[in-house]
């Protein structure tokens, strides 16, 4: 499971495209498509390089009108979903 102290990064070799500025990803392993809304696309743009989850959440709290508590719950759930769909790598 990905938690606050995990280090994460996008998986390499994914297929992606943009529909009306929102990203759509596809894992070559699963062949399934995964659409990101505006906020999810914003998060995706931030995790090209390895990143500590708590740093990512702090950045998001600064950029968006969202409480730390809500950001932690929702971002961690989203990152775990990306991992489940083989789109995200948990480095540590």
């Amino acid at each position, binding site marked *: 499971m990905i938690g606050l102290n995990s280090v994460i990064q996008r998986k390499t070799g994914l297929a992606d*495209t943009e529909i009306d500025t929102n990203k*759509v990803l*596809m894992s070559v392993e699963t062949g399934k498509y995964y*659409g990101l809304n505006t906020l999810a696309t914003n998060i995706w743009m931030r995790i090209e390089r390895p990143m500590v989850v708590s740093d990512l959440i702090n950045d998001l709290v600064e950029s968006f009108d969202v409480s730390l508590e809500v950001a932690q719950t929702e971002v961690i759930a989203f990152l775990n979903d990306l991992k489940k769909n083989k789109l995200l790598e948990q480095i540590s």
Partner: protein
Amino acid sequence: MNYYQYITHGLIVFSEIPLPELTSIKSEKADVLIRLGEVQRNPSSEKINGVCFQFNQNEFHLNIKRIASFYVKDGNEIVIAPHTAADERDIRLFLLGSVFGALLQQRNCFPLHASTVVTKQGALCLCGASGSGKSTLAVALEKEGFPIVSDDVTAITFENNRPYALPGPRRVKLWQDTACELKIPCSQENAIQKEVNKYNILIDPVERKTELKTIVIISTSNKENVDVQPVTGFEKLSVLIENTYRSEYLTNDQKKTHLQQCGLICNHVNIHQIKRPKTGFTLTQQIKIIKKLIKPKD
């Protein structure tokens, strides 16, 4: 060896067998060679739907019982091994359908399951499940002065990230009742298969590729009237994936290119969905809606 020479989907085809559905040309060089020969089965190949085999993204094998085995390689060669007593029309039906679909995919060309016409605003693709009436509507639109680009499968190519529809075979496949309704005569020699009530209607497809501007998805509903809705957001991507011809043949690597091409199309074209009643002849209404859709906005 003397080959029959044709052009279709933007490709110059040299063929050992005559393909009267395609437009003849004279050329020194071919993009695709179609020959008769032996087709080997590869035991390591992956099976799709029990009849086709995808070796890898450069090799494809399709075996149709009592008709022929086909082998497609590197997007430039098709080998046909006809089964004894097979009808030539049956062979051509699969060759120009599924086999060309796989060939186009090997060439990273986007095969859209659509009949396409040209309007002043660019190419307009008509998509929809078999029996939804895309060929019928294309023929009706041709009578209204919109020339046909391709029937059933339209190859989409990309230049400077813009999608273009390429002219396909010079025939439209129509069921007998629709041909009658459109006052088009059919004769048994033009039947697409022996004892099948579907006919090849010869047309004059446009000669050049046309920039793709509009896609219309036709489906049927239980309502009494024809209804039209715009398709937006991720839904656009879903309909493109759904309407990719023989998408089950795409390898995961080909899916990467395919997804990027879907994105280019989504960001460049308007997509609308037309729902028509299941029964009854509503062509006039559909044509009216389409003319309204392609009208330039002031």
